């Protein structure tokens, strides 16, 4: 399988150069998608929540980012979100907010 994958890599690079197709950023930022998947435990799969915990799906990026930054700086009080927000850099929070903003509600 290993040599198939390295040949695949060459294939992919060739195809990418030959024909770029616009793909939504959210679909491409696999790392942000992976980070955001952690939030599903309380906020629901893809940020679509059931119950008392608010949804994240489709909310404006600026709102999500501001909320997390306010939790991180203790400007906004919370039972738990400040404890999570302080675990991420601003750059990471921005990409996660971008990801959720692009998820359909």
């Amino acid at each position, binding site marked *: 399988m290993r040599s198939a994958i390295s040949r695949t890599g060459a294939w992919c690079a060739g195809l990418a150069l030959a024909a770029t197709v616009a793909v939504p950023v959210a679909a491409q930022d696999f790392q942000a*998608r992976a980070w955001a998947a952690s939030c599903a435990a309380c906020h629901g799969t893809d940020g679509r929540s059931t119950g008392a915990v608010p949804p994240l799906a489709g909310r404006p990026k600026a709102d999500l980012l501001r909320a997390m930054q306010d939790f991180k700086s203790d400007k906004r009080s919370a039972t738990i979100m400040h404890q*999570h927000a302080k675990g991420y850099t601003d750059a990471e929070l921005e990409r996660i907010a971008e990801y959720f903003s692009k998820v359909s509600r």
Partner: protein
Amino acid sequence: MSSLNRREFMKRLAAAGAAVGASSLYGCAAPGAGAGARVVVIGGGWGGCTAGKYIRKWAPEIEVTVVERNPTFVSCPISNWVIGGIKTMGDVTFSYDNLVKRWGVKMVRDDVTAVDLGKRQVRLASGGTLGYDRLIVSPGIDFMYEGIPGLKSPAAQERVPHAWKAGPQTAALRKQLEAMRNGGVYAIWIPVSPYRCPPGPYERASMVAHYFKQAKPRSKILILDANQDIQSKKPLFTKAWNEIYPGMIEYRPNSELVDVDAKSLTVKLLGGDVKADVLNVAPPQKAGEIAHRIGLVNINNRWCGIDWRTMESVVHKNVHVLGDSTLSAPAMPKSGHMANQHGKICADAVIALLTGRPVNEEPIISNTCYSLVSDKEAIHVASVHKYDKAQKTLVPVKGAGGISKERNALEVAYTQAWADNLWADMLA
């Protein structure tokens, strides 16, 4: 070697290549690039269902088969509430139907007898085999009865339940508590860490106290902890016990176990014998038995070492281990919540490995764990874990995480939402 040979792989990639997208930071992963790849998951629990569903969700061209011995998913998180009489077994029992119907996961109800790592074949108790390109092993825990000879027989284990795997034992323990006389003693013995669910025993004691307070108020709860101290949320549990259940709960640390006499419901500690009316012993734990049989256990004959970027075994390539069976990363609890987090690291990595894009070298996951202290108030602990290149593991982020400021009613609502969202995340 995999039955998916190079020629076949390239043919399928070409077919999928028509829809290839612009290269991202993480290289080119043509949609559909994993076509024909097969993943087998051993264990339909928190780790296995999450990994299985997320692979289908993020790369629906990859075939996923989950092997699970039980007909339904019974949730251990929240099962303490059943023991306390706040929920029913039905409230914590779920079907696998949606995994099959909505996500196309193949569910095989069977046991795994062996794995041929060379041929990449899983052998089932029914006699069939399942071929795989990547194997995910998420078997939870099994108990180390070697140190507790008095609990070796099935009859003894029924009389002195652990209820540390949700299902019939959960209901059985509840029944024992219902049958107990007013003024009786419920004793729970806790093994030395690491064990599954650090706050679990203390939540259980709280739930039993809640039940006793309503139904048999002269009864007592005895926590016999082999550890030196309460393992999770200590100030919150202690305060709750003192204020909500004064005089009902006694906590004894350093309770080293010698043996159990099931007939007389006596636990023999190094410091002396303790008799109870309902005795609950959670024996010391190790990785699920199949992990040992496959040869994945490399730490203390108990846990499986893995690469935290991919969850891949450090012993065997192409095999990933999730959840309680793993050698826990620093300050990372063994829990359903964590297994669900592991499942996503694994799904992303398995897809990357099968489709030729680079693995995420910087996973970030979190722990959020809620415990009820009564039917009206809950508490939590949280932490964020990031991959550290130098230490080659996930480490807790300093300054992040913590516990509840105080127990409160709002967190009961959050606990319910956490549970409902997690169950849906894995099974809906």
